[in-house]
């Protein structure tokens, strides 16, 4: 068994974002005898097929890829749930940034700036207690008004909203972007 080849195949399958095809392997490795390649791939697959391993190499869409074994699905789901709870999505971050700088603000105003509906993000942010509802706007439909919370300030290490980075400060740091955008 060509152990070196096996290790390289393991590396390639690991970093490949799509199922790794034989063609792609040959493209990267150059000339390798077909049988040698086959037996290395098989041996590698068998290594992972061992019941003591949590992950496996599967063949899908004409290529090889790493995947978790189905018997561990519950743990994968638990992990992803927790992961999701503890972090902000990019949509939520966008929404939060708008509320931070434009408060008090209504959902319709946020959505208008973002160009997409923001209900879900607002819900996430409310759950995380980074924003709160402070009343209703005296306007048609009496929409709810949102503001950031104390917790928001704590999270970002701010004493008050006046401490939010100013446009000039960010622009200075981002100087090049400013030139491209303007």
């Amino acid at each position, binding site marked *: 068994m060509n152990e070196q080849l096996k290790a390289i195949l393991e590396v390639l399958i*690991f*970093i490949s*974002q*799509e*199922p790794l*095809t034989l063609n792609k392997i040959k493209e990267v490795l150059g000339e390798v005898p077909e049988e040698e390649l086959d037996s290395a791939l098989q041996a590698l697959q068998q290594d992972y097929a061992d019941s003591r391993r949590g992950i496996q190499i599967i063949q899908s*869409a*004409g*290529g090889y*890829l*790493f*995947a*978790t074994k189905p018997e561990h*699905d519950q743990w*994968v789901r638990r992990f*992803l749930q927790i*992961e*999701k709870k503890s*972090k*902000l*999505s*990019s949509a939520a*971050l*966008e929404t*939060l*940034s*708008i509320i*931070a*700088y434009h408060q008090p603000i209504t959902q319709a105003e946020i959505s208008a*700036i*973002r160009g997409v509906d923001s209900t879900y993000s607002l819900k996430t942010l409310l759950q995380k207690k980074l924003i709160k509802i402070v009343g209703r706007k005296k306007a048609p439909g009496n929409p709810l008004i949102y503001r950031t919370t104390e917790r928001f300030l704590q999270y*970002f*290490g*701010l004493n008050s909203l006046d401490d*939010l*980075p100013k*446009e000039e*400060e*960010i*622009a200075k*740091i*981002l100087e*090049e*972007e400013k030139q491209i*955008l*303007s």
Partner: protein
Amino acid sequence: MNQEIQDYQVQSEITPASAEEGYQVKLEIFEGPLDLLLFLIRKKKIDIHDIPIAIITRDYLEYLEKKNQINLDREAEFLFIAALLIYIKSQMLLPREQEASQEDDPRKILVDRLEEYQKIKVACTLLREKEEIQLQCWSRTFQPPIANSNDLDLLEVDLFDLAENFFLIMKRKEKENFKVIKGKDVSVEEKLKEIVDYLEKNGSMDFLEYFSSRETLEEALVSFFCLLELIKNRMVIAVQEQLFQTIRVWLRKDHQPHQHHGQSHE
């Protein structure tokens, strides 16, 4: 002299600066005044605690005059230290009533800074070694295949992200208002074919780049609709790993080449 400079460069591991700091590439020999000063001190094998200020000042000014070995964008900062050197020199010339204690040594202010800077320089070399190893280890930057994985574009945020996000959204809005749609028909059919052909040839595309290099806003928008269409029809996979990062598009391996004509829209 030249040889020495080159040696110094190798020792201190000066690497070509990245593109965003491109202005430093050509000129980078002495990044800053302290860098130059330390070099002169080492060259003369001088003890940092007992710098012959007159000599060092002369050497330093010589370099400054030649200019080609210093970063010109940093000229003011080089001059500032020159002024400091001259000031210290003048202080040292003043007659003293008694032997000065170390605390009174006018060089102290400079020595303290040089010592701190020297430490940082060494720390940099040590960190550089660690960086070198780490850069050869690759971790995955994408979520491995998992069933039902929606909404996975999660990120840690800090104040910079928050502020950058906001001001970029505002800039984007501003820009949108001033775009004029120029006429020139772009057919969806053609565009679809163009994108698929491109993917077949190149494997994947950076969609943002493709999008922004379109000639007119209309063409860009049509491209965008085509992408949505292709995703809907499960012809391609599009992945955006993070906000403001590019969207990468791949052709699905199981797609039927060139069967997209006609089925693309009703």
